């Protein structure tokens, strides 16, 4: 599950072959890698949580609709941004899609340049999310490596308490607090108090 093994892809999910093919060609012309699916079920069958990139999703499809797929992905914890492609009469559905956290929705026929722009933005966002998630995972691992006492000191330091107060709270000497604190900084790879606070906030 590293950035190197999963490149970002644009997942096109549309039941109309021509629409699917033409979107693919446009992405190809913009040097974007993509992968096409004829339906939500096909995509879900292939999905394992490691996918990177974004979805271009037809809102109206036979079988599982685009909206249903969005809900399903949210349930299983996917954070892939979804760009919905909607038809003429689908405004209420589009509104619901946005409410459920869709990245954007574009009306058919789609304005190609803004389409490409939106794809790029979505991919950037996903990169950021992914990195953040990676950081969080890393932080969590590091926090888990702290001892019980170190974790208590970490929490109180991050909340802004002075060493003296922490020592009195925990009933230990100020000197001992200082030892724990430097141990925490080392284990969490933090050089400043500000970094420590940020790690704490990310974890909450």
């Amino acid at each position, binding site marked *: 599950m590293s950035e190197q093994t999963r490149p970002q892809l644009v997942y096109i999910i549309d039941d109309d072959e021509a629409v699917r093919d033409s979107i693919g060609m446009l992405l190809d012309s913009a040097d974007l890698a993509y992968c096409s699916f004829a339906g939500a079920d096909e995509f879900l069958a292939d999905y394992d949580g490691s996918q990177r990139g974004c979805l271009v999703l037809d809102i109206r499809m036979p079988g599982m609709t685009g909206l249903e797929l969005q809900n399903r992905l949210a349930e299983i914890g996917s954070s892939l941004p979804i760009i919905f492609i909607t038809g003429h009469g689908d405004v209420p559905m589009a509104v619901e899609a946005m409410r459920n956290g869709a990245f954007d929705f574009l009306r058919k*026929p789609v304005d190609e340049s803004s389409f490409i722009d939106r794809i790029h933005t979505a991919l950037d966002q996903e990169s950021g999310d992914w990195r953040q998630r990676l950081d969080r995972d890393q932080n969590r691992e590091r926090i888990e490596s702290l001892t019980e006492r170190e974790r208590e000191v970490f929490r109180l330091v991050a909340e802004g308490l002075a060493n003296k107060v922490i020592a009195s709270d925990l009933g230990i000497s100020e000197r001992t607090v200082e030892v724990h604190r430097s141990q925490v900084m080392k284990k969490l790879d933090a050089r400043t108090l500000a970094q420590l606070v940020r790690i704490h906030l990310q974890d909450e």
Partner: protein
Amino acid sequence: MTDSPRPLTAKTASGGDYDRLETLLKNLPGMAYRCLNLTHWPMDFVSDGCFELCGYRRQEIESQLVLWGDFTHPEMIDYVDRKVRSATDKGQPFEVEYRIIARNGEEKWVWERGRVVDHRSDGVAILEGFITDITDRKLAEAALMRAEAYAQAIVDSAVDAVITVDSQGSIESFNQAASAMFGYRADEVRGQHCRSLTATSFYREFDRFFQRNRVPADDVIRSVELNGCDKRDREFPILLSMREIVDIEEKKYVILIRDLTEQRHAEKEVREQRDMLAHVDRLNTLGEMAAGIAHEINQPLTAISMYAQSSLRFLQHRPPRLERLEDALEKLSQQAHRAGAVIERMQEMTRPHQSHHESVDAGRLLREIHGLAEVEAQIRNFVIVLRLDESLPTVKCDPIQIQQVILNLLRNGMESMRANRCKPGSKIVLQARNLGDRLRISIIDSGLGVSHKLEKQLYQPFMSTKESGMGLGLSISRSIIAAHGGQLEFSNNKGVGATFYFKLSIVQ
């Protein structure tokens, strides 16, 4: 009255003859008399019947205390006098019917017949005759006349032409409605053959009908639709029925003719209205399908703009990626045609058109409607399965109307399936089977089926189980199939749902 005539008995009979004559006269239902042809006819002999006739005894009359003229109804005395004189002046017997007033005031009709038998020396004629009561007959006659007038009034007020003809078909009577319908007065057509009331081109058919019904096999009144022809040679549709008039020695027939012009007119109007409704329904259908059609057009448009943009990018690439360009442009063109086809189909749906039957490739017809209906099925998450024989024949039909019927039946089926909470992906089958001379087209759904209650009102216009339905679908569909010489039928499936089916003629 000094010179009274001798009594009849004294002059003409004697002994046993007299007795016999007396008995004979007594038994007569009336009164024999002899009198002078003078004012009020003084009688010197009357028979005993006088008492029953006028309430006076023989002696009272013969003594001439009352005269016969006193009984005669004052309104009629001159009439009777005229009748008697005009006959006797010519030396002929007279016969007259008139009213008398009896002693008790009762009015009676009498019939009298008499003649001059002799003359008195002064030339006054001596009359002998017989008078009898005919009141009963007169009352019966009056009743009969009233009944006839009544019957005639009914016949005359009838809307239909009522004509009686003899066994050869010659017209005997012609009511007022007949005169109004055909423009002839009754006396103009009496004696003519009733055939002449029909258009010449229908003579043969009329003759056949007349011959067949002259000797009816049963009591059923048969009728025939023909063209009538009036005095001014105007032709118009008529319904003609004929029946023997029973209980008359000579065979006669009564012919009833109804003018169908109005009815035909109304029928035509209904037909036009139905065509208009069919058009409205097509437009409605279009409204219902608007989302589907927008979707159908948007798909190729989306693809077209994507391919176009791709082509542009391939061209702008340094160096240009010409190898991709050809593919992109070809696909773009295909999608433009696809959009065009959708619009063409839509136009066909909205065009009001004359129903015209043509030879149509059934396979193509069904695949086309399948393509159109599939969009709707997708929206409802159902699947339309096309189950066709390998090679389908050419059928005679109006393709647009038949497609409308099939679309309507598919839509109904899917509605019913939705009401039956069928799972997404459930199938509705459009099936065609070659039966040799006809092609049976069936729509098999897995919906609620047709309940016994629903069955009765199934084809009624404006009857709908759907909240949004106008309830015209099935009734119009049925009319369309009927116009194709078929019948829209249905049956409930063994398992679930119903099957609607109809047959189209195969062009051999």
